[in-house]
């Protein structure tokens, strides 16, 4: 008896981004607000980071709430129903449950059940990782349409009084729908990691350290409730970064990755309509523009001024703003590159929806 022939899903030739959505939470935090917590000034922050304000979510607004807001707009713009989604990917480092995923809850809320649902942890590269996966899932035939969301509530993991990263960060969500296309719409993704710099950006404590502290406090006769609360706040994991290492890596290594994404897509910098780098720092953006020798015709996303650094949400949020302010960019080519904690990076050229 001959072995049965396995059937594989029929592949599709091309994919593209069909729609985009954004959610910007309502609380605006100014540099003057930040300077109540750290010894700095509006001028110092603007000069070194380009940030003027950041949006932050109030208590009660979750990563999933923000993801839903962005996803609904993206679905409407793409003109598809949630029930057509084959997969829902949420990129986040601030969904406060190790399990279940934010994506599973989001899928249920949107009415996309039983779409495959999972979160990815790739920090500020998370959106580009998501687009890489969305592209692969659509073209491999594993899903007809994929919702890719970058959503972060970074305000839950900051320490207002520290100076390396907290004052840069904001909350928000951005989402896109990736689906089949008659023409190429997503260039080859250049993605990767450098775990030798695992400590360059990360949390102050692991969750098991928090548990051990709680246990030792509970077993101590001298610890009252207030002391326990205070100790827990001191050990609550918050973000830190080695700014010097990260800055150098970003301007030097990431310009090369961005160039590789252009080369892999078979285009020149002058073919681009837009450049949307991760919104980490205006000075990194400026330096990448110089290193890539982008002509002045390329519109550069600078949403960081208003939104701060929103990690996985920053590229879709910045793209959304760019398209609102420059609707003529729709259909043009955009180079997007995310990079962050891991360290990890991802870049691709996409046709703007």
């Amino acid at each position, binding site marked *: 008896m001959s072995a049965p022939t396995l059937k594989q899903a029929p592949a599709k030739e091309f994919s593209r981004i069909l729609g985009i959505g954004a959610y910007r939470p309502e609380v605006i935090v100014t540099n003057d607000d930040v300077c109540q917590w750290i010894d700095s000034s509006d001028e110092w922050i603007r000069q*070194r980071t380009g940030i003027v304000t950041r949006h932050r979510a109030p208590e009660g607004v979750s990563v999933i709430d923000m993801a839903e807001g962005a996803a609904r707009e993206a679905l409407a713009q793409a003109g598809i129903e949630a029930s057509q989604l084959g997969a829902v990917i949420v990129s986040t480092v601030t969904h406060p449950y190790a399990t279940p995923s934010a994506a599973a809850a989001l899928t249920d809320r949107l009415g996309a059940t039983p779409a495959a649902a999972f979160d990815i942890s790739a920090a500020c590269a998370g959106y580009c990782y998501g687009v890489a996966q969305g592209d692969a899932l659509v073209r491999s035939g594993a899903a007809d349409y994929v919702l890719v969301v970058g959503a972060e509530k970074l305000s839950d993991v900051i320490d207002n009084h520290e100076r390396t990263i907290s004052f840069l960060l904001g909350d928000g969500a951005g989402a896109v729908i990736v689906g089949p296309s008659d023409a190429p719409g997503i260039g080859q993704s250049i993605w990767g990691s450098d775990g030798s710099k695992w400590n360059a950006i990360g949390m102050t404590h692991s969750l098991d350290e928090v548990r051990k502290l709680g246990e030792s406090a509970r077993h101590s006769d001298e610890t009252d409730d207030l002391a326990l609360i205070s100790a827990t706040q001191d050990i609550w994991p918050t973000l830190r970064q080695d700014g010097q*290492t990260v*800055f*150098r890596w970003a*301007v030097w290594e990431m310009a090369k990755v961005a160039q590789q994404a252009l080369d892999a897509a078979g285009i020149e910098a002058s073919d681009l309509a837009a450049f949307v780098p991760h919104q980490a720092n205006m*000075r990194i953006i400026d330096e990448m523009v110089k290193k890539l020798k982008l002509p002045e015709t390329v519109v550069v996303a600078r949403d960081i001024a208003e939104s701060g650094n929103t990690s996985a949400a920053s590229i879709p949020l910045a793209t959304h703003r760019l398209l609102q302010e420059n609707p003529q960019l729709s259909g043009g080519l955009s180079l997007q590159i995310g990079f962050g904690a891991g360290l990890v990076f991802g870049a691709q050229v996409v046709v703007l929806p």
Partner: protein
Amino acid sequence: MASNEEILAGLAEIVNEETGLAADAVELDKSFTEDLDIDSISMMTIVVNAEEKFGVRIPDEEVKNLKTVGDAVNFIAGAQA
């Protein structure tokens, strides 16, 4: 191998590109932070560009020791040797 004069001239060009300061203001005894008013982010940009231009590696922990333009020229000359 670049001479110290060539390194100074190359460094001045990089500083000019980053800050707009006239290249002839970049002298050996000038302090990056106090005399040239270069902040930490500009300093890292200058370091990255100097590494590229002179084919040397300037470790993060070394950057804080480069207080004057002369310190940087000497470090780069030593690293090239």
